[in-house]
């Protein structure tokens, strides 16, 4: 039971990170109907950006306040990753609207290959470790010699995720950008006729997705304390699985899907086999796409004849 509770906490932490990345997939899919294959690599890139700023702040500027460092790193990573998200859309996806069906996906695969190898070229192929920022943990429950803990790291991750999701939710539901975005999802041409700047709305969608990926990247770095250029692929696929599982196009679905994938992966590793934990995620992806492509909260799409 204690073991279960501990795994549950670990799973939720991991799931928060997947959920944040999944939102980027689901938003982009919702608005332009493409699988942004490069999103996982944007996430990886953001972790590198966070890593470098963390080093600058701690080793060069000698800052010691953990909260301040974390906050500055988070904001800088979000801003600079957003710029990447914007640039990628502008260069690699926007010219392809109206091209053939698979063109955006192929282009996205190109971006993905480019980003991971770009990071490898400019930062090297080795794992990049950072010293742990926080080590303490809340002891939630103690039973004989088994303790259930919630580490500060995990608390920070869950709190940050919850806070940012709330803000994000407000943005999409209550602001004019959110309305424009939902209008573009329904019917892009009609939205344009009504005076919505479709290009800008799509750009902003990519920017937001990248910003949330940057949050995930920063938290990932905080949690695991290490990142490498190839770390975008597997979390990317898992977050995409989360988006599909939750129902692609649905924002709450992405978060729920992320949490479910995080929990499944953690329990699978804990109770079955750690070697096959990635196989679990891939299997879920295949099974969901085959049997329920609309996911938990998605709308079924009727084939247009």
């Amino acid at each position, binding site marked *: 039971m204690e073991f279960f509770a501990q795994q549950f906490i670990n799973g939720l932490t991991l799931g928060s990170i997947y959920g944040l990345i999944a939102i980027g997939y689901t938003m982009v899919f919702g608005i332009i109907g*493409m*699988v942004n294959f490069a999103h996982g690599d944007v996430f990886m890139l953001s972790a*590198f*950006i966070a*890593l*470098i*700023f963390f*080093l*600058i702040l701690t*080793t*060069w500027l000698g800052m010691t306040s953990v909260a301040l460092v974390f906050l500055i790193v988070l904001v800088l990573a979000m801003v*600079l990753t957003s*710029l*990447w998200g914007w*640039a990628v859309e502008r*260069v*690699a996806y926007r010219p*392809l609207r109206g*091209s*053939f*069906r*698979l*063109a*955006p*996906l*192929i*282009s996205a*695969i*190109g*971006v*993905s*290959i*480019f980003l991971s*190898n*770009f*990071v*490898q*070229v*400019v*930062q*090297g192929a*080795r794992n*990049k*470790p*950072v*010293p742990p920022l926080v080590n303490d943990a809340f002891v939630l429950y103690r039973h004989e010699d088994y303790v259930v803990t919630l580490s500060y790291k995990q608390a920070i991750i869950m709190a940050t995720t919850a806070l940012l999701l709330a803000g994000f939710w407000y943005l999409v539901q209550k602001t004019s950008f959110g309305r424009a975005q939902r209008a573009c999802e329904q019917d892009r041409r009609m939205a344009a006729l009504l005076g919505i700047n479709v290009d800008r709305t799509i750009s902003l969608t990519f920017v937001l997705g990248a910003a949330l990926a940057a949050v995930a990247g920063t938290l990932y770095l905080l949690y695991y304390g290490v990142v490498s250029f190839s770390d975008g*692929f597997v979390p990317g*696929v898992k977050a*995409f699985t989360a988006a599909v599982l939750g129902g692609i196009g649905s924002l709450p679905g992405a978060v729920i899907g992320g949490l479910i994938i995080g929990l499944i992966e953690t329990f699978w590793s804990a109770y079955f*086999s750690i*070697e*096959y934990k*990635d*196989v679990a995620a*891939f*299997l879920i*992806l*295949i099974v969901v*796409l*085959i049997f329920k492509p609309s996911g938990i909260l998605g709308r079924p799409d009727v084939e247009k004849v």
Partner: protein
Amino acid sequence: MAGTATMARTGAGGEAAAIVKDALLHALVTLGLSIPIVSYRTDAGQGTGLVLTSRWGEVAILCAAVFGLRLAQQLFLAGRSRHRAKADPSAPAAVSRASALIAPFTLGIALTLPALAALATGGLSESRYWIDLGILILTYVMLGWGLNIVVGLAGLLDLGYVAFYAVGAYSYALLSTVFGLSFWICLPLAGLFAAAFGVLLGFPVLRLRGDYLAIVTLAFGEIIRLVLINWVDFSGGAAGLSSIPRASFFGIPFTAGEGGFAATFGLDFNPMHRVVFLYYLILALALITNLVTLRMRRLPLGRAWEALREDEIACRSLGINTTMTKLTAFALGAMFAGFAGSFFAVRQGFVSPESFNFLESAIILAIVVLGGMGSQIGVAIAAIAMVGGPELLRNLGFLKAVFGEHFDPNEYRLLLFGLAMVAMMVFRPRGLIAEREPSVRLGAAR
């Protein structure tokens, strides 16, 4: 871009200013993107921590390069739009005439490469590098042609193609080491196994829409790789399988002693005999792939593949069983990957899961995409350029002189692959060779 519209309205001076401003903007964005990922490099320090090094010089060069390139591009575009009236209508015809010559020329080179290399380097043993490179390129040509059936003809994006390559390689490795079967029995079996895997995977997933299919094939490819890594009893795990029997000349081994290839044919023993044999083996396999594909295009099934790529719904309304039709394309593509895989195993004498990761699938896909989906000669040229190109660059001394001693073009190979894929989709979505030869002509049938 929004800039072009404003440019048209302003005068020549305004135009120049707008171009410079646009280029500056691009440089500025590049600067933003370079922070901090290019401007600071992280390296392992003495202890456990990382050390930062600034590289603002490189950032400046990068921004200047982007500025210059954008400026040149805009000036070129502006110049071309002024001369648009004088566009050369004969250009496409010239391209197709050139590509008609390229095919026999390339084939000629391919058929005589070992002799050419031996002559150029002054001996069979000295030419080993070139023949090995030829084998490598031809393997990718064959894989590209195989994938071209799936992606180029049938329009199915398969991101897990390398899984079938792996099935072929492990089929040969296991059949030959465990059951002692010879390469010539294993080769067709490997193809059949790979095709069976294709059917097994394809049956449930080929109903999915294009991009979902791509993701599912990717997941399948990864699962195969992870199983190969973790199922140690079966596949040898991450360490792979080694001491796989080498190829023989239809039963005659390439050994030095009595009964070996050299002795049987009265030649002096030379380890290069086997390499040359492997070269012609992969050349033959690749040509068979090509021949079958060209033949299939002229058959109803091949035409149905292309129709499927064009419009699946129309196909269904014409009574074509789309699932079965996709399945045949998938299985045939998988079979050729299986052949290529068993060739890979017999050549290396060693297989491990790391040879079959997603990147490999992506490289093969890039070759197909760059070659122009559906064009056989385009795929061959793309394979030569993408696989052979970086190899050749590595040997060019002056690049080292310019970029420093540690410069290795291979590092940039994948980066360029990625960029080229994007550029291709943006500028020439139908590939370098976009021309499509009709499978049948009314004129010819008359």
